[in-house]
């Protein structure tokens, strides 16, 4: 019976999409009842971050390995605004997104001159510069002490309980996701895909390829900033970890794990990685005499497993199977694809240690 229902659903892409969106919303709303609320907030923030990266990696074919710069600078900005002015936290988070976008402009202008692994290296270099500035500029960032005690103001509401803060923060993340969805399903998004598939042909058709890349980079940075600001306010804390390169690596892993170029996949990847890391950090795994407490190894193994077995990522594989049943050709890129040079470099990216 259920099989029949699902077969009908699969045959109706619009309805199927509606069900997916409603299901996703339902899960998002139910999340803090099911799991520890701060972790739920982490999943939402990381999901938005991964979606932002997916705009670049999945839809434009650019692997940014420096997105920690935007996530982290936004975390510091949101913290500073909230601490210094006592502004309501959505204002602080929006301010953070704006700062991330401003920071992204010069980085994007320089980085888009290169593609593939060189693009990744340039973005990494800029992110490391941001890291060192954050480390040295103690007056603003607190150095390795971090920014502590970021308040969660919202017009006098008490949001100190993470359960209630989740519902206050969720709408901001949803707006971010909506923007990403809108970008992908707009003519602008179609051009991005065209650029991914064949930059030379796009250029010959008259599209200013570099300008499109800069625009999507800035949008992606802005969404990352939204996520980073939300994350910092949720934790009440912004630290150097937020601008460190492992954060850039983690979000790339999430996106690839879930399936690049799918948006949904990024969210699933974020949920899986955050959950696994939380589980490992709380309990650890004992294999014989070896006690694996750090999440790095296990996350790395999962990543390797997914890349080897489901090259399209979790969601990518599901979508592919659905499409195959409907005899629709794949529209999204996958790791074995030849059209995405940046994604091909993917397995070379070291998992977060």
């Amino acid at each position, binding site marked *: 019976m*259920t*099989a*029949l229902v*699902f*077969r009908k*659903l*699969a045959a109706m892409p619009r309805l199927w999409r509606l069900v997916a969106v409603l*299901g996703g919303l339902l*899960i998002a709303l139910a*999340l*803090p*009842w*099911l*799991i*520890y*609320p*701060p*972790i*739920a907030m982490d*999943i939402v923030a990381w999901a938005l971050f991964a979606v932002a990266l997916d705009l670049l990696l999945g839809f434009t074919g650019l692997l940014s390995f420096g997105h920690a710069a935007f996530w982290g600078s936004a975390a510091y900005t949101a913290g500073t605004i909230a601490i210094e002015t006592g502004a309501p936290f959505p204002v602080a988070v929006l301010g953070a997104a704006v700062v991330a976008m401003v920071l992204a402009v010069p980085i994007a202008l320089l980085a888009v001159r290169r593609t593939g692994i060189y693009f990744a290296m340039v973005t990494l270099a800029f992110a490391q510069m941001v890291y060192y500035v954050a480390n040295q500029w*103690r007056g603003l960032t607190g*150095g*390795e*002490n*971090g920014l*502590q*005690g970021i308040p969660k103001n919202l017009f006098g509401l008490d949001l*100190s*309980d*993470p*359960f*209630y803060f989740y519902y206050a923060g969720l709408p901001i993340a949803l707006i971010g996701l909506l923007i990403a969805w809108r970008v992908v399903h707009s003519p602008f998004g179609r051009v991005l895909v065209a650029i991914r598939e064949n930059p030379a042909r796009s250029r010959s058709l008259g599209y200013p390829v570099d300008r499109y890349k800069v625009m999507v980079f800035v949008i992606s940075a802005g969404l990352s900033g939204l996520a980073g600001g939300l994350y910092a306010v949720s*934790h*009440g*804390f912004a*630290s150097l*970890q*937020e601008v460190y390169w492992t954060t850039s690596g983690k979000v790339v892993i999430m996106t690839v794990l879930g399936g690049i170029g799918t948006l949904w996949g990024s969210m*699933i990847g974020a*949920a*899986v990685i955050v*959950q*696994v890391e*939380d*589980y490992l*950090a*709380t*309990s650890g795994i004992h294999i014989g005499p070896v006690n694996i*407490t*750090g999440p790095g190894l296990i996350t790395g193994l999962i990543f390797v497993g997914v890349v080897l077995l489901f090259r399209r990522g979790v969601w990518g594989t*599901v979508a592919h*199977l*659905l499409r195959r*049943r409907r005899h629709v050709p794949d529209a999204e890129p996958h790791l074995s694809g030849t059209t995405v040079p940046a994604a091909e470099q993917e397995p070379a990216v070291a998992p977060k240690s």
Partner: protein
Amino acid sequence: MRRNLIPAISTLAVVSLLAACGGGAGGPSGGGGKISDDKIVLGVINDQTGIYSELSGPNAVKAVQMAVDDFKAKHGDDAVSKNIEVIVADHQNKPEVANTKAQEMYDRQKADAIFDVPTSSAALAVAGQAAAKKKLYFNITAATTALTGDKCNKYTFHYAYDTYMLANGTGTTVTEAGAKNWYIVYPDYAFGQDMEKSFSTAVEQAGGKVVGKKSSEFPNTSGDFSSQLLQAPAAKPDVLGAMHAGGELVNLVKQYNQFNLKDKGIGLSVGLMFITDIHSLGPDALAGTKFTDAWYWNFDQQNREWADKFKEKTGSRPSFAHAGNYSAAMNYLEAVQAAGTDASDDVVKNLEGKEINDFFLRNGKIRAEDHRVIHDVYLAEVKPKSEVKEDYDYEKIVTTIPADKAFKPVSESTCKMG
């Protein structure tokens, strides 16, 4: 037919992935009775495997467990609760990990008090969580005076040592003993900078002079301190003040010996040293070095007795951090016993201003104004190997610095208790 199930299975898989590995239950948090959740939970957050795991680490957890066992044995059936748990988390010396772990301990694992937390940045994060969750935090192994200064709060207590106490003890005494000219090397992060400032002030107030100072990158991954050390002789100091901690200190002292600075008339003074550092270097590498110790296991019979019990459990001798963890846990439990509840405000009220004398706190007092726990501390000198009679018998206590002189006076504190 089976293939038709794929969408169903995948949807279910996603939902269960989201739900299943969460572990802890969600929902809004609730209140509690006299003893919240019918148990007292003591959390230890520290470095379980890294550079600070020797000086506190797993053995600090054992020390807290010892306190729980002793408390149960002492009070028997009268104990305020028979259900006392010790839980542990590894913060890997990262503030953001400490922040999350502290939040989880207070919320999810129902910790009533958190202990230890080496690394100042991590300690400040835990103190922030303690204030937010209105639960107790006893800092033992972090050195920053900010915990009882700008960042002080009602639920945070600072045990054992801090940068002021170290600088005041070592800087002042060594300068007054004749070593007027100091050359200070320090790691370039919050702790090192604090130490450098505190030492410079202490040395100058005692009539000495800082003839040179040099920072080293932190973390110093290469372990190379030659550029800092080789520049020292040019400034003609009497003493080299090393402000590094743990593994970095060990490397620096090795190189100090390799460059024969001692033979060039430059003595060595160390800002912060744990007995575990001396143990890993061997006493000869450090013989004659003066430093301030918050507690020494072989100081007198009372300390020795506790150290013997500790050795039975762990196989090694305690650092002051281990003893401090025991004392803090014990005094916390006694305060809960006296208050008859683990409600934070009542326990804090019981602790504030309390005068305590135990094997760790000599002439001890918990200052109500800034929650600094003051007690006698000691200026120690490392014995040469020839005088070492047994393992860990490394220190000679030169002088006892009385509790009211050892720590920053309340009048100078910047703490505003909210």
